[in-house]
């Protein structure tokens, strides 16, 4: 690159850039610090964790041992993770199965009054969660769904579906129309168009959508605690079972929280590149 191509930053602008960069780092660190402290606490003894903030300590994995052994008898680590995994995966699969045709109908072959339809989907998110819990609880009770995985699978599907339709619609809208028309002329059926053109092209977007659904479902606490407080419950509920009324629990709770975060962080890490591309591609426009 020749000198002429380098943007010349002089005087005030240079100073402003440095200041903004510094502010960004400080903000980032402030946000990161609680997570860092949680991870640190999880390797301490309860005593170390509950005394004055201490960086110098002998790390131990005992807390992880404690939390993964079912002590309370309410909900074991293994149960909670299996429940979460099953609920999250099945609900995300159902969401994608329903959202892909819906997004196709809204983006590629816009149905009559598609804007109203789109608004209707997102309007289901306007109602505060708290306001809906009583009717949902009564329904779940009457349908014998309390304390079962099915209740949460249905609910998480309902919660994530509008978001997934909105995201996928914007990804699908970005596929050049001519490509679909070319496939149509080339003899591809609707299924052929979907499998050979639309889905491969929208793959980053679909990955991003799926990941968001997974994260939201994995982290959901409110419905889980109301509908499945004991049996068939999920990781966030399991984390809270490590809060005890007697004795210190901060280090244990930290260890449980770290374990709860790992799958989501891992999924995010693996899908990072695709997800950023996916998010930048259309969802936020």
């Amino acid at each position, binding site marked *: 690159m020749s000198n002429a191509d380098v943007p010349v930053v002089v005087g005030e602008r240079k100073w402003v850039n440095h200041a903004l960069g510094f502010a960004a780092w400080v903000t980032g660190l402030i946000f990161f610090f609680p997570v860092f402290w949680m991870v640190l606490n999880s390797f301490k003894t309860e005593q170390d964790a509950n005394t004055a903030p201490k960086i110098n300590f002998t790390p131990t994995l005992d807390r992880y041992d404690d939390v993964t052994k079912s002590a309370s008898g309410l909900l074991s680590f293994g149960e909670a993770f299996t429940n979460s995994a099953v609920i999250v995966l099945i609900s995300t699969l159902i969401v994608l199965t329903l959202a892909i045709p819906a997004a196709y109908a809204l983006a590629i072959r816009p149905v009559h009054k598609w804007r109203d339809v789109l608004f209707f989907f997102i309007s289901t998110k306007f109602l505060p969660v708290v306001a809906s819990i009583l009717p949902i609880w009564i329904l779940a009770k009457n349908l014998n769904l309390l304390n079962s995985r099915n209740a949460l699978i249905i609910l998480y599907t309902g919660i994530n579906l509008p978001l997934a339709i909105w995201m996928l619609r914007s990804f699908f809208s970005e596929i*050049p129309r001519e*490509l679909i028309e*070319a496939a*149509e*002329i*080339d003899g*591809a*059926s609707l299924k052929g168009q979907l499998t*050979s053109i639309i889905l491969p092209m929208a793959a980053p977007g679909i990955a991003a959508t799926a990941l968001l659904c997974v994260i939201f479902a994995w982290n959901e606490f409110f419905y889980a605690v109301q509908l499945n407080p004991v049996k068939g419950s999920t990781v966030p509920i399991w984390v809270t079972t490590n809060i005890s009324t007697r004795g210190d629990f901060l280090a244990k709770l930290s260890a449980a929280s770290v374990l709860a975060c790992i799958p989501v962080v891992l999924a995010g890490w693996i899908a990072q590149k695709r997800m950023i591309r996916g998010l930048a591609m259309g969802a936020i426009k």
Partner: protein
Amino acid sequence: MTVVKYDEATRTYEGTDVAAVDSLNLDIGDGELLVLVGPSGSGKSTALRMLAGLEPLDGGTIYIGDRDVSNVRPRDRDIAMVFQNYALYPQLSVAENMGFALKQQGVPKEERISRVRETARILDLTPYLDRKPKHLSGGQRQRVAMGRAIVRQPAVYLMDEPLSNLDAKLRVQTRTEVVELQNRLGVTTVYVTHDQVEAMTMGDRVAVLKDGVLQQVDAPGTLYHEPENLFVAGFIGSPAMNLVDVGDASPLKIGDSSLTFHGPGASAVGNGAGRITVGFRPEALRVVNDGPLEAHIRTVEDLGPEVYVHVAIDHQSESLPLVSKMPPPFEGNPGDSVRLQIIGATHVFRGDGSRVASTTANLS
């Protein structure tokens, strides 16, 4: 044998009252290369998309061969289309792109491969068969798009401005290649372009559209020499025909010079035709030493084999620009006074734009 017929075909887009294509009647012969040309918004692309089945018809019928295809799905029309942006499938290789339609039709793999290879050979694409479209140049992508259409051996090719994304030099070269290929394959082709030079050089016949209405369909030479109306006269030819509104006075005058018509059709002029516009091509307007019409030179464009002299005359107390095509060498500079004469075909149009006659005229 595949003929294509538009019969009163009409398409009106939702939310508008004006038809994008209005009662189009057009017959395209077997093996013919017909070019649809017009300015943007003329309905040429819509007409093509109606034939492709990508736009529904609001009225009329379209036939491919003897079959009424008005309500037939695109994939059942036995057509292949080349898009302006090529519409290559980005995740598929060149070979897969070209073989896509065959695969959809259920052609056996071996035959598919041999047909793709044969087409690639014709189009010099053999070295690129395994590449993805993003690793190809614009010209190569264009050839892949052509190849994708050719490999199918359809009844009709549809081409929607397939050369407009190429640079000028490559466009001229590819133009010839497309015509050669079309002649060789002998498949009925409908070709859309906004470029009248492309239309004139490629088409067996050219259909000129304006505001969704067919203006004239004829061989390029006929369009050029006998334009049926003012729009066609002005649209076909570059630089455009000189058009002068001469009013309805008798005798007809350009500037201070009177127009006299000779030859066949001359008698039709001036029989109560109302307001008259006369048109003459740049090559019919000559800069001569003793011409009757005075003008001054605005600019001189020396292209080598020909020189375009842009002049301005005083006509009905306004300055009117005209173009003269002169053989080189041409002596003259901007600002110089020159004298003009019309030598050659002159077209006479009524106030409504329709043609009264194409004849010869000169100034005195």
